[in-house]
């Protein structure tokens, strides 16, 4: 029997999908509306899943009272109400796609001391979500799922 605990968090941030490695025209072609120079924003939802033995003394895999402030400090505070491209140093080097945001969040949460980080899932909108799982092969693989396009 394997047990995991998942907690959902939220932050709102803006980003722009643009890479200096491509020409202006190519950026437009690849990223479409998302390359708009002024940026745009999302209400992101972050699902954090941890796993490990349930401590018989507390009945818990991890105390949410420890997980909450950890996620708050590592992710929510630095990301919430920010322009990701400029204000989160890691996205000066790489495009602030939600694949990369998901991977960066995973990297930041990996050191959670009380349980093993198993999965991070980021909803960019209610239609698009991205998830990354620990130890999938040699690298942490990002999976993308998109809802049916209705507009």
């Amino acid at each position, binding site marked *: *029997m*394997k*047990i*995991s*605990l*998942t*907690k*959902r*968090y939220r932050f709102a941030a803006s980003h722009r999908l643009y890479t200096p490695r491509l020409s202006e025209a190519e950026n437009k072609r690849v990223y479409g509306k998302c390359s708009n120079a002024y940026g745009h924003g999302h209400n992101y939802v972050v699902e954090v*899943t941890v796993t490990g033995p*349930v401590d*018989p*003394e*507390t*009945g*818990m*895999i991890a*105390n*949410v*009272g420890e997980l909450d402030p950890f996620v708050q400090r590592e992710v929510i505070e630095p990301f919430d109400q920010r322009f990701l491209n400029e204000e989160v140093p890691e996205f000066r080097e790489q495009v602030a796609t939600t694949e990369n945001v998901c991977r960066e969040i995973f990297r930041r949460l990996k050191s959670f001391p009380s349980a093993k980080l198993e999965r991070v899932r980021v909803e960019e909108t209610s239609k698009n979500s991205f998830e990354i*799982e620990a130890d999938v092969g040699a690298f942490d693989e990002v999976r993308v799922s998109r809802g049916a396009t209705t507009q």
Partner: protein
Amino acid sequence: MEGAGLPGKDRMIRVTRKVEFSAAHFYHNPNFSADENRRVFGKCNNPHGHGHNYVLEVTIAGEPDPTTGMVLDLKELKDILETEVMERMDHRHLNYEVPELTGQIPTCENIAAVIWKLLEPKIKSGKLDRVRLYESPELFVDVNAGNGARA
């Protein structure tokens, strides 16, 4: 990993049924001092208890029967959930009224594990694949067999 050693994996279907129950609980470990109890369990230590609307999702995996086209009879699953979960836990105080939880802190982890153990032997067609218990829309626990059966 694609289908490795799992013949018929592409024919396997997962069926999920959802039920909701409301119950009261509080967290208290008699081995801890009053201070420790408050520090570890926070507000959940309030001896008067508090409650949740739990949402339980039970997933059964199997191959549909060629005659009925069903993995299992959902009516049967509904009855099992009624007997094993609803009658035991709905509108109950989890600290006092559920013998399976005696001696355990009634956390989401422990409740979900008890539900897994109650349901697993009752599922005769298909196999219990996952128990997901939401304590709130923001917090849930997953239990699965843990032998790599489910990614």
